């Protein structure tokens, strides 16, 4: 009886020590899940998810506060990837998926108020007060955050055109189905 108790106790001590050691040895700094989620998000920083940027949204997903289908720029593909990562069910996107786009400033109308420069989350607009502004197309994420502050509504969104350099070969599958 005593021996049995002693063995069980010893076992408990050994296993406990192992667990304790493992928790110290394999301690993970930071929250890798947030980083993984953030890597999937498109970094448009548009706030359409209701969070002020991609990182806060990633944190909210990691905490289980936010759903995975709130990111329209990420599209259905992004939802799918998040579902894969988190082992959750993929859901239809909460919002409308748009083709990739960039903002364009009508330079004749722009009054140089700098409001859009302040609004742009990714510093893609250049210009100075009372000077014409312009959008650096390669930096624009198409988040539309510059649209509401513009007092003269001189900013429009343009879909990104496919070029010879960005053109992609098509998926070749022809599904073999019985011709009814």
């Amino acid at each position, binding site marked *: 009886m005593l021996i049995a108790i002693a063995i069980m106790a010893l076992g408990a001590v050994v296993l406990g020590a192992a667990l304790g050691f493992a928790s110290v040895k394999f301690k993970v700094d930071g929250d890798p899940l947030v980083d993984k989620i953030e890597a999937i998000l498109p970094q448009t920083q548009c706030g359409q998810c209701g969070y002020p940027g991609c990182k806060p949204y990633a944190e909210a997903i990691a905490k289980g506060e936010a759903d995975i289908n709130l990111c329209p720029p990420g599209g259905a593909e992004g939802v799918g990837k998040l579902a894969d990562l988190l082992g959750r069910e993929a859901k239809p996107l909460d919002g409308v998926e748009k083709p990739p786009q960039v903002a364009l400033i009508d330079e004749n109308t722009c009054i140089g108020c700098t409001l859009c420069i302040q609004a742009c989350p990714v510093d893609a607009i250049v210009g100075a007060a009372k000077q014409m502004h312009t959008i650096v197309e390669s930096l624009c994420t198409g988040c539309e955050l510059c649209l509401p502050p513009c007092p003269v509504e001189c900013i429009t969104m343009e879909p990104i055109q496919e070029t010879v350099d960005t053109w992609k*070969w*098509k998926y*070749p599958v022809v599904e*073999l*189905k*019985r*011709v009814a």
Partner: protein
Amino acid sequence: MEFSTSPYLLKDTSVRRVMTQVLLALVPGIVAYALLIGPGILAQIAIATLTALAAEAAMLRLRDKPLALFLGDGSAVVTAWLVAITFPPVAPWWLTVVGVLFAIVVAKHLYGGLGQNPFNPAMIAFAVCIVSFPALMSQWPGPGSHLAPAQQLDWIFGLAPRLDGMTSATPLDALKTALRADEGHSGPLPFLAGNAQAVIALCYLAGGLFLVWRKIITWHIPTAFLGAMGLLAGLLWLWQPAGFANPVFHLLGGGAMLGAFFIATDPVSGATTPRGKLIFAAGVGLLAYIIRVFGGYPDGIAFAVLIMNICVPLIDMYTQPKVFGMKDQ
């Protein structure tokens, strides 16, 4: 014009053509079989082919796939022929039908059809039937008895009572029984029905070499299969000549040749890399020998193939060849 991409030149080939050549390569063996053992095999092939085509058509319809395209690819017929050849020629017709149905419906289509089956369908059929109907699967034409064609057909279609005395085990079984009975034997090993088995095996070998020449299969699998089996048989025979049959007997007896050139070479369920093929086939050869010599079944090819089928993904993963320019890195 339809959207199509290069290459615009294609070799004149198709799945149907590949399968037809496999069937062609089987013909010498089948002819020898029919001549030496009896025409029962031809009836079995006919039953199996019809069953396979009907099952294939039904499954394609159920799965909503184009009938003409897949029915004509010949893969079901190859499976059917292999089932018919590996089953006893005097097996009742319904046994062949059950075997083929299992091969086509379960082993092939339930796993996704052509190209998707992880196990060799014909060997699944053999394994299922030998486990379910061991007696019927072990009835082979008796030694030296050339059964009349009519008699074989009567048996197949259940028109005459099956007399145990008229059938017997395969030469491998006979050998095993003899060795177990501790009779020992110094004379030539018992070849059933004269040397018919060996002649048929050589015909399969010829057909297999035709496939190698036509580049339908590569040398790797037959060589490793026969090499491994021959090596193990040879070692044991040298060690104890009275206790084990000589390697030639093993290579020409049972289903060794058929297995090496036609069964283990099934590309869908077998390993695909050159080194993988060697490992896979050597495994099949060794296991087949072990099962046929030390196990309770007449021959071990079917189980050996199925066991090695399980290992294929692992073998392929660890034997990926080095690509161009990366060999010394």
